[in-house]
């Protein structure tokens, strides 16, 4: 694994804080009704992305996830202004305003979505890895899903084939405790999700995912295994989300105390404390980072606000590769 250094921690702090503040901004503009539809925020789960990005080779590895997907493409290198614009439904968005909150994609940065159906992305992730194995490319696909998705049949079918065919894929379950409003314990008898891997004779493990170092270590091992041609790994990344499932979630299924307990082990606070304790940064340095993050979020907001809405014909332009597809008329 790449060494974890002062520079790593400084990057982690700035990245994670930016992701948090980016999501906070989205929540704010959602309330102002500038962003509509569903909005699933990543607050609390940032250590997973930070650790994953450290472990993967972002020049060749791939990532796919479900609908809690705004910050992953940013981490992979997508301009956050374009992600914000997508949520505003603007033509400058990552999908020209056709995708929205749940459907962010970047072919250039090997981010394959952004998927709105729980568990629907799991076989796609294995398929990306299938193609890499088929063409003998040296790339590994990180396939993310929530704890809720592990109760979908798509997981069973995909794990069966992925392990049988030795696909270069890592299945990463972000267990934030709740499938929407239903706790993991209420969805199945066994709450140790990682143990599902055992049924497929797939290496599997639980990971403390409130700590980016732990995530990076676990993923590094899994990615190395996949890269060596030794097949997939199934990891349960134990995390927590502070906000509701989406924006209209009153969160009656948990107590404020529970949320407060997790905020005590907040991954960003943890990274910040390490910066100070190890003298990687002074309070002044941190203030400067905080200011940079704030300004960058503001830039995203301004870009999204100022961007134009897409032209109406875009709706037809992107459905088929065929240029002259004869769409049926829908009104006079």
């Amino acid at each position, binding site marked *: 694994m790449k060494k974890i250094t002062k520079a790593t921690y400084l990057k982690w702090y700035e990245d994670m804080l930016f992701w948090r503040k980016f999501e906070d901004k989205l929540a704010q503009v959602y309330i102002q009704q500038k962003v509509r539809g569903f909005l699933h925020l990543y607050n609390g789960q940032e250590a997973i992305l930070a650790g994953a990005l450290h472990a993967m080779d972002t020049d060749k590895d*791939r990532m*796919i996830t479900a609908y809690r997907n705004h910050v992953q493409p940013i981490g992979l290198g997508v301009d956050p202004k374009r992600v914000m614009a997508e949520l505003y439904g603007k033509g400058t*968005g*990552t*999908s*020209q*305003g*056709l*995708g929205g909150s749940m*459907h962010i*994609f*970047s*072919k250039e940065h090997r981010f*394959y*979505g*952004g*998927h*709105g*159906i729980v568990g*629907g992305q*799991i*076989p*796609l*992730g*294995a*398929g*990306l*890895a*299938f*193609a*890499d194995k*088929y*063409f003998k490319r040296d790339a590994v696909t990180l396939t993310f899903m929530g704890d809720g998705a592990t109760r979908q*049949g*798509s997981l*069973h*079918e*995909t794990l*069966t*084939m992925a392990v*049988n065919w030795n696909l270069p894929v890592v299945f990463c379950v972000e267990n934030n405790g709740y499938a929407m409003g239903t706790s993991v314990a209420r969805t199945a008898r066994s709450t140790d999700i990682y143990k599902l891997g055992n049924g497929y004779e797939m290496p599997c493990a639980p990971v403390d995912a409130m700590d980016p170092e732990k995530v990076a270590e676990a993923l590094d091992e899994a990615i190395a295994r996949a890269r060596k041609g030794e097949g997939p790994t199934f990891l349960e990344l134990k995390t927590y989300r502070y906000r509701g499932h989406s924006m209209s979630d009153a969160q009656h299924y948990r107590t404020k105390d529970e949320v407060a307990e997790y905020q005590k082990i907040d991954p960003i606070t943890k990274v910040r404390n390490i910066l100070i304790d190890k003298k990687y940064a002074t309070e002044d340095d941190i203030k400067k980072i905080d200011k940079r993050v704030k300004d960058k979020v503001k830039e995203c907001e301004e870009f999204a606000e100022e961007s134009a809405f897409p032209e109406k014909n*875009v709706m037809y*332009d*992107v*459905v*088929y*590769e*065929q240029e002259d*597809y*004869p*769409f049926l008329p829908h009104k006079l």
Partner: protein
Amino acid sequence: MKTIQFREAVQQAMSEEMRKDESIYLMGEEVAEYNGAYKASKGMLDEFGPDRVIDTPISELGFSGIGIGSAMNGNRPIIEFMTFNFSLVGIDQIINNAAKIRQMSGGQFNCPIVFRGPTASAGQLGATHSQAFESWYANCPGLKVIVPSNPYDAKGLLKSAIRDDDPVIFMESEQMYGDKGEVPEEEYVIEIGKADIKREGTDVTIVSFGKIIKEAYKAADELEKEGISAEVIDLRTIRPMDHATIIESVKKTNRLVILEEAWPFGNISTEITYQVQEQAFDFLDAPIIKINTADTPAPYSPVLLKEWLPNSEDVVKAVKKVMYK
């Protein structure tokens, strides 16, 4: 020209394309070692090896999705369903991923994939194995839907489907795999989206597609004996639909009967009926009649199944009605 079976036409189309393009593979249940449940991939494992002709577990959802993921990453997969009845457990992948990836990504990803296998009834198989889902798939923007009715069309259209950069649903029939027909020895393709006038006529237009079109041919023979000249149009592609060929024919015959093996509610015949009344209202000399299966799940008993399915007698009756004879 050489006479071959429908299953050989399918096999030839896939093999010829696979020889030219390394990114194409065939995946499905029993496609490799068993040579295909209906022998439509006979000999392909031997020629292309297990990396390109791939047996799967019985996991339609899983291997549909793996196919789509690989299509987003450089492959051009052919996914075989043993029957489209089994595609229902994987339909989420087709509708929500294959059909939408391009649109949802703002055109960044395309999805060059073919899902193929038999559709509609195939004898006394009962309700779960006798269904036609053409109208379900054709309803979904992002997909193309092809249903050939003979070996020549199957080969030419399947080659086009494999070369197409959009996801294609390609529907065959268990009861057509043994059908024989002439196929040129030299290479050819048939353009997607073009109907074919299988039999020219002047008095009435019969539109159909897939294996049931044979009942239209039989009806046309019967009608000819009675001095009625029927034009039979084979749609071949359901989506996009070739309206022009149908409209032109109706403008000539002024009468239309549609034969489709599918439940009557909101099916392909319904769509054709709408298009014709919109585009050729003044040319119609009689209401359009559509002939479909009964509005029930397919029954098992031979007597009931016969009653459930449309046949040539139904077509003759309908033609006489639109001709007021």
